[in-house]
């Protein structure tokens, strides 16, 4: 059987896919947001009159919400328009709609804004010029404090042969889907309907309902084709504004960000400072202390998920008998922190791997051998007291070391080879349901996730069904429906689609087999076969065409079976938690990467020459899709490693909101990698599969940093490893 092609190839290659930015409705108005001119301040007044005087313009601000919303308002903590305090620059203070985009922009510019500026906190280090002590938890800037410990830390540090302490810094990075956020809303007859470019139609429905204070049942979200998400399109951003304008105008309203706004308003990974301390005795790690200052932007107290989640990755997949982790979420005047493919894990892996490399050198050990000795194996315990499940990192590392040795032996002068180990956990905790419909000629998977590009929906889910039912690829089709018609589904994030929705498909497939067995009068296992273009149910001693097994009511559609997957999250040992919320892992995915780089010893410029990935995957569900995820993750990771860096002014203005100077890699900077899958270490997904959307990005900055150090001796402790930073580490400046 040849590999199945993506079913969206032909459509997309003929320009036929309609993305959020392509949406159009008869009589539609175009919308624009009115941005705050300051990063922090108080709203004195918003005067919409000059905008409203323009022909065909509808304008709304905070004063209009009670009249527009049946419940009179929504979430007081997350106001649509800030009634008083402005939290970040460009925060929408009002919104307008007009017959053309140019008119909408002119109307937005005509709105008179009066704000009283307040001092803004932009750089988190200005809040803590010294590394914070225990008083930090009481700082007005700290909105989250997490702290956990285990073992006799004091004794371990007192009796250590060697203690190494280092500080790492990471920069803000954007997701950069090529398609900016865009939606079209139409509110009529009490239905709040929006079509949008989103990773999670049901997530947007929930968000919109809570933000506007309306029942979920009154909200309908349809997913458009999505021009990339990478975490940036996981929750609502524009939909509430478009819906409110549509309700006010009584017409459909289109709201799309231009690319500058995509940079300025998107929620993404913000800067951090990481301090790592490691104690070694007799060549073994005896204690680790990790501390994190994380910029969480204008996230809300109590809603900061980033700090506790991120810090789980700062110990890395390594054993330590005693440890302490402490993290502070620092509120700054930037848009709230948001997820970016494997949120903050590449930054954590960069710090952890580079640091352990430094520790190994300090005690005269080979860095890779040192890491290998401490790597988790099945049955180990995580620092948070969870049992480690099947984990392929050590097996992947063994292969990676062989490749690295080969490359290093052949490397010309100025080249270096590095290995990075990444750890990630599929998020199968978020649940969902699917409906399978078996007709005499094929199977349809009816579900509520829009394909965002990775192929996990259109190919991943289809491949699970093919395998679960023994069907050829051309007989399985994935159908997307909006929230009004589809079974509930959490959406595309956390590498969960194949892991969680695949489990739901396996469950539905079992139900389908049971139905077929019953109708076939067969007790044994049922498989499906193809004869003369028609599906046939085959039992141990009998076979009949599916056509003959349909009940009368099923003749037009087919046999329906449903499956669901709502996993109970694993537990951590709460006895180790001092304060705050930490999160348990669902499964354990290792990614081991080898990078060969050339470092220009005069300028510090780094060029990635060769790249190899050894990916722990449990089971490969669809090879082409899996390989594409690894290739794409590596390129995105190379951006974090080398060129991507959001820069803000002291006043909170983003200084590089353009694709010219926010530099994602081009074709010339990314070598075609060698990709090897390491199978056999089962994850939580169907057939033991592990999610693959996020893991491949995790070890990239670590692998590149190790290679740069190998090539040049430069030990760079800040991301990205720009040529100028490498030049400084090489003492060229």
């Amino acid at each position, binding site marked *: 059987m040849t590999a199945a092609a993506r079913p969206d*190839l032909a459509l997309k290659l003929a320009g036929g896919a309609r993305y959020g930015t392509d949406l159009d409705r008869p009589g539609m108005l175009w919308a624009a947001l009115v941005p705050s001119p300051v990063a922090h301040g108080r709203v004195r007044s918003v005067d919409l009159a000059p905008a409203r005087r323009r022909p065909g313009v509808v304008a709304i601000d905070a004063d209009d919400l009670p009249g527009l919303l049946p419940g009179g308002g929504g979430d007081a903590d997350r106001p649509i328009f800030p009634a008083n305090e402005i939290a970040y620059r460009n925060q929408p203070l009002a919104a307008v709609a007009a017959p053309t985009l140019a008119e909408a922009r002119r109307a937005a510019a005509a709105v008179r804004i009066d704000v009283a500026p307040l001092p803004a906190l932009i750089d988190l280090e200005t809040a803590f010029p010294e590394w914070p002590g225990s008083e930090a938890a009481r700082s007005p800037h700290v909105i989250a404090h997490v702290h956990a410990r285990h073992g006799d830390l004091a004794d371990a540090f007192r009796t250590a042969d060697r203690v190494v302490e280092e500080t790492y810094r990471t920069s803000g990075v954007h997701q950069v889907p090529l*398609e900016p956020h865009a939606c079209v809303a139409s509110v009529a007859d009490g239905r709040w309907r929006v079509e949008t470019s989103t990773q999670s139609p049901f997530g947007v429905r929930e968000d919109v309902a809570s933000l506007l204070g309306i029942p979920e049942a009154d909200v309908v979200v349809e997913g458009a084709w999505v021009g990339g998400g990478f975490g940036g399109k996981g929750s609502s951003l524009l939909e509430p504004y478009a819906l409110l304008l549509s309700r006010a105008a009584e017409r459909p309203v289109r709201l799309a960000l231009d690319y500058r706004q995509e940079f300025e308003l998107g929620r993404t990974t913000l800067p951090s400072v990481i301090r790592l301390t490691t104690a070694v005795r007799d060549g073994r790690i005896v204690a680790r202390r990790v501390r994190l200052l994380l910029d969480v932007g204008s996230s809300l107290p109590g809603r900061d998920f980033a700090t506790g989640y991120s810090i789980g990755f700062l110990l890395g997949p390594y054993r330590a008998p005693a440890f302490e982790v402490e993290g502070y979420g620092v509120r700054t005047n930037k848009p709230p922190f948001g997820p970016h493919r494997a949120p903050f894990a590449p930054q954590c892996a960069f710090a952890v791997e580079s640091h352990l490399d430094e520790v190994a050198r300090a005690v005269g050990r080979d860095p890779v051998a040192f890491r290998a000795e401490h790597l988790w194996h099945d049955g180990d315990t995580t620092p948070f007291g969870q049992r480690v499940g099947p984990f392929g990192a050590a097996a992947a590392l063994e292969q990676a070391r062989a490749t690295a040795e080969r490359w290093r032996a052949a490397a010309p002068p100025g080249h270096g080879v590095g290995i990075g180990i990444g750890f990630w956990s599929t998020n199968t905790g978020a649940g969902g349901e699917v409906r399978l419909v078996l007709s005499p000629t094929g199977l349809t998977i009816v579900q509520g996730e829009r394909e965002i*590009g990775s192929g996990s929906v259109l190919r991943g889910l289809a491949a699970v069904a093919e395998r679960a039912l023994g069907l050829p690829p051309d007989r399985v089709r994935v159908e997307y429906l909006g929230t009004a018609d589809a079974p509930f589904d959490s959406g595309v994030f956390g590498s969960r689609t194949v892991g969680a929705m695949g489990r739901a498909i396996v469950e539905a497939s079992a139900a389908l087999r049971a139905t077929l067995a019953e109708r076939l009068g067969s007790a044994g296992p049922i498989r499906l076969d193809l004869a003369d273009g028609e599906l046939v149910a085959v039992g141990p001693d009998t076979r009949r065409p599916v056509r003959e097994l349909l009940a009368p009511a099923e003749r037009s559609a087919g046999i329906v079976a449903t499956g669901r997957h709502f996993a109970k999250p694993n537990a951590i040992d709460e006895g180790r938690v001092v304060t705050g919320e930490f999160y348990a892992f669902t499964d354990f995915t290792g990614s081991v990467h080898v990078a060969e780089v050339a470092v220009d010893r005069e300028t510090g410029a780094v060029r990635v020459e060769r790249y190899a990935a050894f990916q722990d995957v449990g089971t490969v569900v669809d090879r082409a899709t899996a390989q594409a995820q690894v*290739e794409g993750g590596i390129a995105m990771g190379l951006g974090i490693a080398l060129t991507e860096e959001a820069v803000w002014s002291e006043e909170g203005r983003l200084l590089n909101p353009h694709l010219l100077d926010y530099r994602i890699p081009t074709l010339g900077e990314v070598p075609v990698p060698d990709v090897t899958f390491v199978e056999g270490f089962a994850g939580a997904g169907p057939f033991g599969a592990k999610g693959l959307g996020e893991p491949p990005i995790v070890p990239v900055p670590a692998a590149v940093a190790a290679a740069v150090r190998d090539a040049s001796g430069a030990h760079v402790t800040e991301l990205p490893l720009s040529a100028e930073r490498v030049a400084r580490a090489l003492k060229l400046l």
Partner: protein
Amino acid sequence: MTPSPTGLRVNGRDAALDGMPDDERLLDTLRWRLGLKGTKEGCRTGDCGACTVLVDGASTLSCLTLTREVEGGEITTIDGDSEDPELRRVRAAFADAGALQCGYCTPGFVLALAGLLKERGRAAPVEELLDGLQGNLCRCTGYAAIVRAVALAREAPT
């Protein structure tokens, strides 16, 4: 057939531009005046290549081009089922290599590569073709599948 000097020919068909304002970009003309949404709007600053189309066979950033400036020209976009030989060749190569994920950069990549093949020929070194695609950004594929598609587009028989 000679295109009308006050209009465009788009994918082999005449397109009227009555009442079009002078400042309209080719990107907006294609997408919103002619309804040809296959051409994608990305950055609108000439930095991503998603809006690349062919103007008289030459790859062009439609976001940085006034429609009036290319009046009388032949425009080729991704939309529909083109007879253009290079476009067909590149489409087939992208399909065979599976060289897309979200697909938003795809129209720009396909037209940029088709333009390079027209300009430089299939015998152009692969390095030159790859170098000529550095103005097209892709965030999904890591470019690996696109590199494979470029090789296929050069090698496949006519």
